[in-house]
C-alpha cells in the first residue's frame, strides 16, 4: 500500500509539471503547414541523410540505414484528388529522385562505397592529426593531391609542412628542423620563397630569438589550437575535392531553418489573418535575418527594380561601371541610348556587359 501512496505523490508532482508544460506551449500551434514541399521527395531526403551520416563518421549507422532504406523504399504519401493534374509530372520527379538514390546507395552502387572509403580515410587522417598530433598522414595526402590543390590555390601542403618544421624544432631541436627543411622545402621554393627563407633564417637567431625580427616565425605550434586549425583546413580541402561543403549541409540547413522559423511563422500567421497570398512563388516574401556565416554567395539586388538577379534577368554592367538588372535596363532604355540611373553618363544597351557573381 505504501507504493500506491508513493505513486499518488509522484502523480501530484507530475501534474504540476504537466500543467506548466501545457501552459508553456499554450497558443503556440506547431508550424505544420498543409503544403509540405518536401513530403514528395522522401528518396532525396534519405539520400541527404545517408551522406550526412557518412560524412559525420557514423559508418555503422549509415550502413544500417542504407540497408533498411533499400529493403523498404519510401512510399509517397497519400494524395488527394486535386493533386491529380500534377501527378504525371510529379511521378516523373519521383522516379528521378528514386534513381538518384539507387544510383548512389543501392547495394551495388559505387557511390556509397566510394564515399564510405573516402570519409573513412578522412577520419583516420583527422584522428592522427587531432589526437596524436601526427602530421605525416595529412602531409602524405596533401602530397598525393598536390596538383589539384595547387590548381585551387590551396596552401594546405605548405602549411602542414611548416607546422611539421616548427614541431620538429620544438621537440627535437634546430638540427632536426634543418634536416627536415632541406628535404622538404625545396619544392615550395617557387611559390613560398620568402616564407621558407624566413623559417630557415630564424634558426640563426636561436640564442636571442625573442628580440630578433624572426620572433613571430618560430612561435605558435605549442597550443593544441594549431592542430584544430590545421584539421579544419584539411577537412575543408578534403571535402572540396569531393565537391562537397566542409560542414554538413544538413546541419547548416536545419540550423538556419530553426533560426528562420519564428519569422516564417509570423508570416504565415499574417497571411492567414489577412487572407493574402504572395504573388511570386519562387521567392520568399520576407527577408530572413541570418548570421553572416550563413551567406555563401554574393547577392545582387537591382537598385532600380529591387529584384534579385536570376539567370533570366542577369546583372548588366553599364560602361560607366554601374550595374542594373537587364529587365530594368530594357525598361530604362527602350532600345535607345539612356542615362545611367546613378551618374550622368549615357550609353547604349548593346554596350552593357553581362556579369557573373
Amino acid at each position, binding site marked *: 500500500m505504501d507504493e500506491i501512496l508513493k505513486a499518488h505523490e509522484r502523480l501530484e508532482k507530475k501534474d504540476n509539471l504537466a500543467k506548466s508544460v501545457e501552459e508553456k506551449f499554450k497558443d503556440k500551434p506547431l508550424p505544420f503547414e498543409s503544403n509540405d514541399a518536401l513530403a514528395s521527395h522522401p528518396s532525396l531526403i534519405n539520400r541527404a541523410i545517408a551522406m550526412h551520416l557518412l560524412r559525420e563518421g557514423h559508418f555503422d549507422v549509415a550502413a544500417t540505414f542504407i540497408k533498411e532504406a533499400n529493403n523498404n523504399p519510401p512510399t509517397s504519401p497519400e494524395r488527394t484528388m486535386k493533386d491529380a493534374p500534377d501527378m504525371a509530372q510529379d511521378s516523373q520527379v519521383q522516379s528521378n529522385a528514386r534513381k538518384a538514390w539507387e544510383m548512389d546507395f543501392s547495394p551495388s552502387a559505387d557511390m556509397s562505397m566510394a564515399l564510405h572509403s573516402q570519409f573513412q580515410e578522412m577520419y583516420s587522417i583527422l584522428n592522427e592529426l587531432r589526437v596524436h598530433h601526427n602530421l605525416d598522414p595529412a602531409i602524405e595526402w596533401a602530397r598525393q593531391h598536390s596538383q589539384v590543390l595547387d590548381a585551387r590555390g590551396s596552401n594546405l601542403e605548405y602549411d602542414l609542412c611548416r607546422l611539421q618544421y616548427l614541431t620538429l624544432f620544438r621537440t627535437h631541436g634546430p638540427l632536426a628542423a634543418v634536416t627536415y627543411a632541406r628535404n622538404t622545402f625545396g619544392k615550395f621554393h617557387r611559390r613560398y620563397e620568402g616564407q621558407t627563407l624566413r623559417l630557415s633564417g630564424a634558426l640563426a637567431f636561436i640564442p636571442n630569438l625573442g628580440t630578433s625580427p624572426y620572433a613571430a616565425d618560430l612561435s605558435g605550434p605549442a597550443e593544441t589550437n594549431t592542430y584544430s586549425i590545421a584539421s579544419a583546413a584539411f577537412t575543408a580541402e578534403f571535402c572540396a575535392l569531393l565537391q562537397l561543403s566542409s560542414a554538413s549541409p544538413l546541419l547548416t540547413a536545419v540550423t*538556419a531553418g530553426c533560426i528562420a*522559423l519564428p519569422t516564417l511563422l509570423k508570416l504565415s500567421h499574417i497571411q492567414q489573418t489577412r487572407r493574402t497570398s504572395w504573388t511570386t512563388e519562387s521567392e520568399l516574401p520576407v527577408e530572413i535575418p541570418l548570421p553572416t556565416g550563413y551567406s555563401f554567395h554574393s547577392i545582387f539586388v537591382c537598385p532600380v527594380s529591387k529584384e534579385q538577379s536570376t539567370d533570366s534577368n542577369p546583372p548588366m554592367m553599364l560602361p560607366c561601371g554601374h550595374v542594373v538588372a537587364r529587365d530594368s535596363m530594357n525598361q530604362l532604355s527602350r532600345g535607345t541610348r539612356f542615362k545611367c540611373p546613378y551618374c550622368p553618363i549615357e550609353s547604349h544597351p548593346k554596350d552593357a556587359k553581362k556579369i557573373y557573381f
Partner: protein
Amino acid sequence: MGTFNPDTQLILDQPLLKVPNELSRKNFKTTQRNVEHTRDNILNGIKNAAAPFEDSVSALDTMIAKMEGLKRKLSECHAEEVALQKASRARIEHINSLHSMQAVTDVKYDEWSKVRLNRLLVDYLLRSGYGDSAQALAKAENIEDLVDIKAFMQCEKIRTNLEQAKPQEALAWCQDNKQALKKMNSDLEFELRLQQYIEMIRTRQPSKLLDAAMHARKYLATSNSESATRAAALLAFPPGTPIEPYRALYSHERWNHLSSLFLRTHHDLLSLPARPALHVALSAGLSALKTPSCHSSHLSSSSNANTSSGTSVCPICSTELNELARSVPYANHTKSIVENDPVVLPNGRIYGRTRLMEFQSKMPALPEGRVRDPSEPDVIFDIYQVKKVYIS
C-alpha cells in the same frame, strides 16, 4: 540580428516535453486501474474469507496471489515511470542549456544545434519505419533519453500489423487508452470492430455470419448509427459487389486506411505532429539559404568548389541538398551582398580585389601585369583589363 530568444528556438520541440508527459499520464492510469481492480477483488475476497476454515484459507491464498500480482505490475509501472522521469529530466536540462547562450553565433549554440539535428533525424527515421537506424544513431550520439524510440517502435509494430490485416494489437491498444480515446471522440475502435465484422461476412459461411451478427450487436450497434446500418445492410451484398458503398467496405484498401487512421490517432494522443519536424526545419532552412545562383547554369564566382579562397562551398550547392532545394523558394534579399572593392574581369566574373590578388600570390607567379581567373586558373588576363565595378 535581434536579441536571442530561447523560446523561439523551441517551436519544433513541443513534443520533446509533451510525449513523456502523455506517456507518464497513461502509465499512471494503468497503475490506477491495476490498483482499483485488485482492490475490488480483495474486498470480495474478504467477504469470502468470512467462511468456514477450509474456504477461508483458500480465499486468503487467492488474495495473497492477487496482491503479489499487483506488486509485480506496480513495480513494472514504477520502472516505466522512473525511465520516463529520467527522460523528462534530460530533456528539460537539454532545453535549459539554451538559456545560457547569448546569440545564435555562440559556439554552444552550434553544439546544441547538432544535438537537435540528431534528434530530428532519429524522429524522421522512426517515422519512416527505419527503427534499427534510429536506434543505432541515438546510441551513437548518446541521445536515447531525448528521443521516443519505444513509443514509436510500438506504434510502428501495430501499424504494420494493421497493414497485414491483423487488428488484435491495435484493439489492445484501444483498450489501454479507452478513456483518452473517448475524450478525443475517436472512432478508431469502431472502425476496427467494423473491419472484424466485414472479415467475418467475407467468408459467407453460415456459422461465421451468425458470429458476425453477435459481434455487430455487441460492438457496432452502440454508436454511430449510420455506419452501423450500413454494416447491417452489408449482409445482403456478397463480396465482389459492384455497388457502392458496399464495394468500398469489402475493399482491402480499408486496411491501409485503418493503419493510417491508427497512426493519426496515436500521434494525436501523444501530441506528436503529423509530419516529421525535419521536413519543417529543412524546408525553412533550404529557403533561407537558397539564392538564385544555387541552381544557375553559370559557375558562381563567389562560392564554388574550384577555388579554396573565399567562402566555403554553399550547402545548397553541395550534392546532398541541391536537388532537394529545387522545389523551395529562394531567400528574399533587399540589399546586395558583395565582397569589398569588387572588380570585374573581361569574362564578366566579379571578385573582391583583395581575394583576386591573394589568389595570385598563391599560384605560380605570372609575368608582371597578368592575372588569373580564380574560377578557371588557366584563363589569364592583363591587369589593366580588370575594371572597378560599382554595386549599390
